[in-house]
């Protein structure tokens, strides 16, 4: 072959090769450029998201981990298998975990991976890890999970990791069962008319006939055409068509009835008020088919009472009873839970948005059996979301760590979407109020029953119980009270979200009950509240009947402020003349309503085993007079506030104030960051430390270090056993008023104004506090009802002037605003609202029923 020919032959390959080289070089350049930014491992973890971290060395292999979850809520796990698993891919199951297969949180032990017994739907059963992210996901979704069940359900089921598919499958099951019933009814009615259509509709015949209702209708149409063809001369085709159309209608009606009758949450007993009851709103996301007994086992129960509530209730002039089902959960889009873990030479480096580093460290040490000193935890950006779980993050991180330990490779585990969906599910709560009221508005008896379905595990059951028990009666002081709070166990996914700040649900219930009392007794809601928040002399007072003590003196100023701001009394009286009913809906005057709600936000609960009083803060004034605060870096909005606070107290520039957070040290607090990062507690500690430094500053040479912790005031006592006394170290109050107008054509409420008044002591930064409140308001509006918005000019915020110590704003808006809005709707429609979010057709159903 001549040189020319050889060259000509070689050149296309060479060209292709050089072209490929150029392209891969280009791609490499992109990666290198990107890694020069935030992709490197040596980044500031506090300013990074763990899911963005990649190994600095591009040759180092990174394993992507994907969690395989159980599609059933109970049963015996037999095996998890994946066909054609590549050799270098790793499937972690319970038997492969090096040491303990559980995470210990307070007194509970939660399995990392289901070993033998499945506790809940969505429980992790295995984790697959591999180098190709997409392939890992595909293989994980194709995993075959063999679960033995005691019921007649199928023994084997393919992994069903998509929540949408779950919902679709549930719909199919309901449709199948309804279809069976419909067929039974049809057969019973017309046993002689066993036509081809009915035979073909029988779902037992073959799987192909079992289809969702729409498809079933299609099947009926097909058989119609078939029967039309085969039954020529048998009868009038139009009559047959009518008969088939009647069958379709009957089928649809029976399907609708079955869907309505399906109880979305069988775990909680309902005692609905027939007139006012609103069926559980919306989609199937919270529903599980009823497979549990009525009486579920409970994690904890709290009962306390004072006074003779039974007799008082019987003798009362009015007895008002309601059951509320708040499902308010503030959802946001944020980074899913997970972790990035490196294991090298016996040292584990973990990057994760943990809120409880000490808990994570202990459990990681226990699971892979290495000393705690060898575990480095770098906290990454924590999402601003209620989905943050103190203990579930530890489970996910421990799974990633186990894989990293066993494979000796770096692992990135991001919770799959279905797990995130489960985590975001609102907690299931039922709150039953029975209230005895006299004609003058005094509440003489209040019987409260709170039931929470906490799912399969609830490490903080006691704290949740106490929080609900303290807030169940709200701001009010009935003459006699009985409170029972139960945290039930079930086969549902553990209630993670909404258990923080769960008291917003009890406030919704008690404020809605007060509104119902106002409607039925005809007493002004403000007067009703004032009468029932007076500290009263309890007959036969003794220490056994000691009630929950809250500083209610702040309330009058709050009521006064909100009344003036919103012109509540005048509007309430005026709008009472024209309620929105079916008769008045098209009157010349629009139907409007005014609603009110009041709540408190308590911090530093004395009954918690994780005592906030143990937390300390150390502050050092350096030689150059700069101030170093040794604590985790607070949220960005608080940094300038604390810097200014410290600089004002010590007369230094705010630029001289720094935060020092050394994650490598093992002396991190035992407490979670929900306590150590609490704005209120940290502000108090910072003040104490600065005062300490100020005393020593001109007597001792610099540097000076001061370490302080909070102490319980002498006049605050709390008896956890008898459940009485002053429950909180600090208390702030909030009140909200809302005005709504009902659209007479769409039966939808439209907001006209929101007024907020807050008493949170001295406000350190008014602008930032107002921004924080507006943020919460916009969030509540987004979640309370579809499409509910309000122009910012119509939101009025006021801070009651106070010389008290700065206190927390907390989640006060979530406790007061939903009830204020639903109370306004209740006032306009004379129909108490029992649930939030408010279903879109709520008002129509309420009015149409009358």
């Amino acid at each position, binding site marked *: 072959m001549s040189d020319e020919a050889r060259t000509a032959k070689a050149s296309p390959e060479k060209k292709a090769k050089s072209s490929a080289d150029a*392209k891969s070089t280009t791609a490499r350049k992109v990666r290198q450029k990107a890694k020069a930014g935030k992709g490197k491992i040596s980044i500031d973890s506090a300013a990074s*998201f763990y899911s963005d971290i990649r190994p600095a060395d591009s040759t180092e292999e990174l394993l992507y981990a994907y969690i395989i979850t159980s599609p059933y809520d109970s049963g015996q796990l037999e095996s998890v298998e994946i066909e054609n698993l590549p050799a270098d891919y790793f499937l972690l199951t319970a038997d492969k975990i090096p040491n303990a297969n559980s995470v210990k949180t307070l007194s509970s032990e939660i399995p990392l991976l289901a070993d033998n017994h499945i506790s809940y739907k969505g429980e992790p059963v295995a984790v697959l890890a591999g180098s190709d992210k997409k392939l890992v996901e595909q293989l994980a979704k194709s995993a075959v999970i063999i679960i033995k069940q005691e019921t007649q359900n199928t023994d084997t089921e393919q992994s069903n990791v998509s929540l949408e598919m779950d919902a679709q499958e549930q719909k199919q099951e309901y449709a199948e069962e309804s279809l069976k019933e419909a067929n039974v009814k049809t057969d019973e009615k017309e046993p002689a008319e066993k036509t081809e259509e009915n035979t073909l509709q029988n779902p037992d015949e073959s799987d192909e006939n079992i289809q969702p209702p729409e498809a079933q209708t299609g099947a009926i149409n097909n058989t119609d055409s078939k029967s039309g063809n085969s039954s020529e001369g048998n009868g009038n085709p139009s009559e047959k068509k009518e008969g088939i159309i009647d069958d379709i209608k009957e089928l649809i009606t029976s399907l609708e009835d079955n869907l309505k009758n399906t109880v979305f949450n069988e775990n909680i007993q309902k005692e609905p008020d027939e007139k006012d009851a609103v069926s559980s709103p919306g989609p199937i996301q919270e529903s599980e088919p009823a497979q549990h007994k009525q009486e579920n086992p409970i994690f904890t129960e709290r009962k306390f009472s004072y006074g003779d509530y039974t007799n008082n209730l019987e003798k009362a002039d009015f007895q008002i009873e309601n059951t509320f089902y708040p499902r308010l959960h503030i959802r946001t889009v944020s980074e899913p839970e997970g972790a990035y873990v490196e294991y090298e030479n016996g040292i584990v480096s973990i990057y994760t948005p943990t809120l409880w580093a000490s808990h994570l460290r202990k459990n990681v040490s226990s699971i892979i059996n290495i000393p705690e000193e060898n575990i480095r935890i770098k906290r990454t950006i924590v999402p601003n979301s209620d989905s943050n779980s103190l203990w579930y993050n530890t489970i996910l991180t421990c799974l990633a760590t186990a894989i990293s330990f066993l494979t000796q490779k770096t692992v990135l585990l991001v919770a799959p979407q279905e797990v995130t969906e489960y985590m975001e599910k609102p907690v299931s709560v039922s709150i039953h109020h029975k209230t005895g009221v006299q004609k003058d508005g005094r509440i003489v008896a209040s019987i409260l029953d709170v039931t929470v379905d906490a799912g399969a595990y609830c490490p903080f059951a006691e704290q949740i119980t106490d929080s609900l028990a303290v807030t169940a009666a709200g701001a009010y002081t009935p003459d006699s009270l009985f409170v029972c709070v139960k945290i039930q166990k079930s086969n549902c996914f553990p209630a993670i979200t909404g258990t923080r700040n769960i008291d917003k649900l009890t406030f919704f219930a008690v404020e809605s009950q007060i509104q119902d009392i106002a409607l039925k007794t005809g007493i002004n809601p403000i007067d009703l509240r004032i009468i029932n928040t007076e500290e009263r002399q309890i007959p036969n007072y003794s220490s056994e009947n000691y009630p929950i003590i809250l500083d209610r003196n702040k309330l009058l100023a709050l009521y006064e402020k909100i009344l003036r701001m919103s012109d509540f009394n005048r509007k309430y009286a005026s709008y009472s003349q024209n309620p929105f009913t079916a008769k008045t809906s098209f009157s010349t005057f629009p139907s409007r309503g005014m609603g009110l709600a009041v709540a408190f936000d308590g911090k530093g609960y004395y009954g918690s085993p994780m005592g906030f009083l143990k937390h300390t803060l150390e502050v050092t004034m350096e030689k150059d007079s700069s101030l170093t605060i040794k604590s985790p870096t607070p*949220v960005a909005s608080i940094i300038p506030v604390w810097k200014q606070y410290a600089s004002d107290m010590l007369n230094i520039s705010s630029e001289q104030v720094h935060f020092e957070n050394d994650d490598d040290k093992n002396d991190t607090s035992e407490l979670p960051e929900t306590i150590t990062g609490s704005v209120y507690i940290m502000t108090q500690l910072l003040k104490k430390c600065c005062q300490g430094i100020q005393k020593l500053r001109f007597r001792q040479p610099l540097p000076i270090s001061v370490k302080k912790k909070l102490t319980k005031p002498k006049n605050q006592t709390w008896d956890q056993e008898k459940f009485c006394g002053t429950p909180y170290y600090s208390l702030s109050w909030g009140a909200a008023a809302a005005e709504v107008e009902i659209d007479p054509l769409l039966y939808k409420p439209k907001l006209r104004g929101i007024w907020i008044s807050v008493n949170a002591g001295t406000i350190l930064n008014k602008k930032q506090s107002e921004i924080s409140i507006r943020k919460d308001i916009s969030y509540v509006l987004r979640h309370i009802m579809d499409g509910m918005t309000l122009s910012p000019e119509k939101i009025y915020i006021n801070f009651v002037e106070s010389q008290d110590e700065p206190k927390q704003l907390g989640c006060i808006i979530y406790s007061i605003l939903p009830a204020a809005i639903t109370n306004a709707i209740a006032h306009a429609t004379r129909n108490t609202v029992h649930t939030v979010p408010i279903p879109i057709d709520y008002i129509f159903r309420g009015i149409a029923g009358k």
Partner: protein
Amino acid sequence: MKIPFILNSEDIILDAEPDSKLLQLLRDNGIFSVKDGCKKGSCGSCTVLMDGKPVPSCIIPSAAVRHSNIETLDHFMKTQDYADIDTGFRQAGINLCGYCNAGKIFAAWSIISTDPRPAKDSVLKVARYFPCRCTDTETLASGIIMAAAARRKRISGK
């Protein structure tokens, strides 16, 4: 498949799966300013500029970016236009959480680049769109209006 396009002012050709989205393509190639949020194009955390317009990269098929001009947030943050937005947001007291930055910043850019004096109503309409909890609607709207003012000041030189 090979996709040639302009990424952050540079001509490149990237490998992509036929069914992949732009978000995945960018993250697989080390660009992490786009976040994997809702996967439905509603949260804004994956926003990029495609031929100068903000788009949610999680729903843009990779093939659709062929010969397009894509700009990501990390590159945009080096520009003067970003500096105007940063100034406005700081003046309004906005502290973004980091996850939704792309959506809010590019939304601000799309307003101030087309309207030097945006009306508050039209800004509020855009600001209401974002589901992230880190910033409320009014503050975000104020930040965008202040960003427009900063941009006017810079351009006019006063």
